């Protein structure tokens, strides 16, 4: 599946993390450090699997339990971003 930042979003890297503005709802969001990293990977890679693999490598190394945790966190984060219309998912 390919992931894409919605055309309705304006975003910017700031000192406190990534700041988002959703032009349809008028809502602002600020992402924490992990969220900001995932967002950057969506912007650069645009595929779910490579994003999970990269993050798993960065945060869990060879630790299997940690990889499972990272996988769960990433899926949860992407799920909530998709639900709010900030990220869109399309069949590759």
């Amino acid at each position, binding site marked *: 599946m390919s992931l894409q930042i*919605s055309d309705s*979003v*304006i975003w910017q890297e700031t000192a*406190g993390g990534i700041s988002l503005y959703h032009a*349809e709802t008028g809502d602002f969001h600020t992402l924490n450090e992990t969220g900001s990293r995932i967002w950057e990977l969506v912007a650069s890679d645009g595929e779910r699997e490579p994003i999970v693999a990269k993050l798993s490598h960065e945060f869990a190394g060879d630790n299997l339990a940690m990889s499972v945790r990272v996988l769960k966190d990433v899926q949860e984060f992407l799920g909530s971003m998709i639900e709010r219309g900030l990220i869109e998912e399309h069949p590759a």
Partner: protein
Amino acid sequence: MTRAVVLGGGFAGALAGAVLARHADDVIVIEDDHYPSGPRARRGLPQSHHSHVLVAGGARALQELLPGTLEALFARGAHHRRLPGDALILGAAGWFRRLDTGAYLISCSRGLLDQVVRQRALGAVSTWAGTRALGLVGDARRVTGVSVRREGAAPETIEADLVVDATGRRSKAPRWLAELGGAEIEELTVSSGLAYSTRVYQAPAELAGEIPAIMLHPRPARGRPGQGATLFPIEDGRWIVTLTGTRGGEPPADERGFADFARSLRDPIVADLMAAATPLGGIRPYRDTSNRRRFFERARLPAGFVAIGDAVVAVNPVHSHGMSVAALSTLRLDRELTRRGLDPAAAPELRAAMAAEAESSWRMALAQDAGPAGRREATAFEREILARRTRALLSSPELAAEFFRAQTLLPARAAKDGPAVVRALTGEPDPLLTTREAVMQYPALHAWWDALTRVRGGREPSLR
């Protein structure tokens, strides 16, 4: 035999009377004041001397409640102005371009609006003018009627299955309910600090019907009073000019001060138009503009009672919402009564429905007047986006539609074009219009303005 009694025969009361006549065998409207025979302001409605425009959401509701009312208003000289398609507006960031957003307003005197509405609303209703409501009758479980006094007569009781309070901003219903043993009603007042001064003019013939609605918003400056003006065309070739100012910057009500205030605004066009027109009557001040809400829906109250209109929520008049909220609420009352019948026990649902109809207007008013209390300081990113929005609003059809539709209580467009908004916010903004360019959008006004500029030796009144 079922009976409903409406207390107050103002805008909300007249409409409520019309709707109740569809659901009750007998409807009585109790009005303290005497209605004027013509389309004039009246004593019981001090605000009727000031600008009263009906925004699109309310106009639609009024037409649905009483079909043909808008046509009747236009036939009597009311004006239709699209926002900002037929309105010359100086917003926070500059002049608006003419855009079609679906939003509009209807402008005429409050006296005319009330007269046309009364004629169409009160046909099937008994109206007791010159009769004051003194209190409610019943107990803590159920309101069974009202106590009233006709001029010069002793108090009498009218029994009712449903009593509707439409006595407006200064409603005494909380006290009346407490006298029956009802619970206390939470009340919230948020001062707007806004003061009005209004004068009516006979327009110069060449501009009378052709003039756009004109609105000069306050200069955006923190910590300084906000001062602005509106000019609306009304029936009979007249204009109604209202100057507004917040605390410390109230508009004067004397001749000289009124003119000087208009001239000191960000643009002198309203002052110039005033100078070209003939004043009709004096300048009238108005100060009671706070936002006030009575939370009837939160209290345990007797059956058989509901409030509507300003008695429930009265917002800062600068939003021009009051009459529209009353019309939308009456439409909702009609639906609820169709569903539930005229059942005194359904009163809590009716009270909740009236509160729900007023909610979005109340929120908009509070967002402006209650300030950011409790909210954190905006980040640099948020400030940047909001500044871009304010600027892009002047020329982006998408942003303007969102803004003006919300302001005029129309539902948001179903499909929002997010990417178009993003382009408007991130692209190079359209250049700001000069006053000349803004005025040129309206040929008749432009011809007049050009002539004035020539008289002044080519010196254009400049944007401050």
